């Protein structure tokens, strides 16, 4: 199926919301791909970080909110540190997670942490994973 592109999508509410939540200017991205080449997780992602930005630019909301990528980004800021346009991609990932969760996806709860881990993982890891991936 062809993907529809229209003013409704590229100037749509979705893009607006992502920009609002993340504080990032999505159209600053010129798709150099540097974020993806340095991302430590990229090989596990179904959409590369630069593709995430591109999908946002084109208003491809459904595809994005269904992607694995947004749950894999660990906010290591490597992409941000090297992005020639100064885009904090982790903020965009966070915004997308937030939107996905608002849409009812509850990706990760404390219940999903194996008890062995619960017993020894640092508090900080527990707090972080829940705040990043849980509602």
């Amino acid at each position, binding site marked *: 199926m062809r993907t529809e592109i229209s003013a409704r999508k590229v100037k749509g509410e979705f893009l607006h919301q992502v920009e609002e939540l993340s504080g990032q200017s999505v159209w600053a991205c010129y798709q150099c791909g*540097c974020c993806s080449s340095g991302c430590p997780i990229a090989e596990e992602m179904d959409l590369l970080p630069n593709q995430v930005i591109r999908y946002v630019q084109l208003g491809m909301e459904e595809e994005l909110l269904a992607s694995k990528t947004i749950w894999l980004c660990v906010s290591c800021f490597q992409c941000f540190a090297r992005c020639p346009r100064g885009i904090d991609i982790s903020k965009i990932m966070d915004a997308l997670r937030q939107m996905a969760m608002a849409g009812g996806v509850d990706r990760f709860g404390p219940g999903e942490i194996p008890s062995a881990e619960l017993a020894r993982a640092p508090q900080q890891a527990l707090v972080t994973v829940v705040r990043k991936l849980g509602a």
Partner: protein
Amino acid sequence: MKRIGVFVCGCGINIAKTVDVKKVVEEIGHYPGVVYATDYQYMCSDPGQKMIQEAIEREHLDGIIVAACSPTLHEFTFRRASEAVGLNPYQCEIANIREQCSWVHQDKEIATAKAIKITKSIIEKERLNDSLSPISVFMTRRALVIGGGIAGIQAALDIADSGYEVILVEKEPSIGGHMAQLSETFPTLDCSQCILTPKMVEISHHPKIKLLAYSEVVNVGGYVGNFNVKILKKPRYVKEDLCNNCGECFKVCPVVVPNEFERGLGSRYAIYIPFPQAVPSICTIDADACLGLFPLACNKCKEVCEPNAVDYDMKPEIIEETVGAIVVATGYDLLPSEELKEYGNGRNPDIIDGLHFERLLSASGPTQGVIRRPSDGKVPKEVVFVQCAGSRDPEKHLPYCSKFCCMYTAKHALLYKHRVPDGQPYIFYIDVRTAGKGYEEFYHRVSEQEGVVYLRGKVSKIFQDGDGLMVWGVDTLTGKKVEITADMVVLATGAVPAEGSKKLFANLKLACDENGFLSEAHPKLRPVESLTPGFFLAGAAQGPRDIPETVAQAGGAASKVIGMFSQEMLLHDPIVAVVDENLCSGCKICISACPYDAREFDEEKNIVRVNELLCEGCGACVAACPSGATQQQNITDDQIREMVKVVLGE
């Protein structure tokens, strides 16, 4: 009181249709000072002009107003006509009743009233006009060219070939610039040295060119037509006229240091010629490397120098020259690799930049054109080229596109493939920019026939991994993060203004853009002129550009200089600012208002003076002057006040 004549044009019906021309004549005819008023159908036609001229003579007019079309169109026409019959051209003014009245209004009554107001306001202006003549300036018909790259060389030759003298100043021991370092040049792959060397030699032989290599411009005073230039000639410690480039001294010099010309990949002695084809072809002693000039520690070169050219006592010399025009052609440098921390921080010998690679490719280079990687001399079999290294990165490095790196990278990959047929080149790119004649075709050749693999994506990181270099990239077209283990990496590092140019441009008071490249007077219509009169721009000093564009621009700059020199006198519009010495309080407020440094403070009299050759007549100083001491010729405050009055119907 001045005797003023007014000539109202109907422009066929262009004006007459909406403006009652007769009524204008009638009203104006009674206006104080107007001794003659008439109308005519086509004022700019021959009969029209003749009519004006006759009236000027017959009525002994001291000033005329032509109420017609915009002054942009025919001011020149009518001023010339006035001048022909002895009326000072600055006593002829235009009232714009067509573009700004008859063509934009419909109501005849209103338009006529407005035309009358416009005409009266111009009469008021004219009443107070002085007779002026263009300021003519004596001009020195000699040019200074700063920078001896291909831009400076071309400009110097073009000017000199037209018969004017040229002084060419180059800071390095030899002219040639970066083009001398290149191997073969895109898109035709002609040998850079082969096309450049004859021009360099021509410079050295040209009777009209005085070459001052190993020199720098330290100060420029004066103004267009008459610049006083101070040039520092650095001591070579070798007499230019005696050294015959026999090379005996190299054989005995005990000091070996990296050769800058080879970008450190080759070496030279403390007494050296940077490259065999250098012009002037004479030695230079690198005082920092030499075992000791003060006190003398070695003396070996002097001992063997047959013509006795070595002169350890040579001193820096200041040379003063007067020139009429200056071409600035100081070129570019590459962004130092140390700035590219994620790409090896300039510390890995096998991560090199484009100019290093040119030297490796060059038959006269340190490896005689055999591609060997610097660390161990191995012929690299997998080579990664990284485009936009530092360019197009407003966050961390250079915001702009360096323009020639897409093409030189394509060239590099191709030449590499020719030298190492079983090697594999890869090029990481964001976009491939090939806007030039034959460039796209060249790119196709490289990507299609030469087996160069283009990968679309920006490299994130390069590091030593065991024996190889790990390059982390992405291919956004497949959507895959990729890595390549390379034997050598070539960074297409971005171009920056030549080292030291910031200081030089500040010294010359030349405007630069935010990246430090020279600003042109107008990006489209005056691309080879600086905003400062008398300065012309050539080559990469204005922004990264390749050789064809550089040569074209250098020719353009040269022809501007020649055009200026071919005039009898430099003429300057006389509507400059003037200062009434009695009113000026010496507060200096105007000095900072002037964009051209045309105002200088007279310490003795405690007043400000205008250098009318520098003044461009913007009037900013007049508005700034709190005491009314400074006025602009023929647009004085009095004139404006009177015009305002009339406009408002008094």
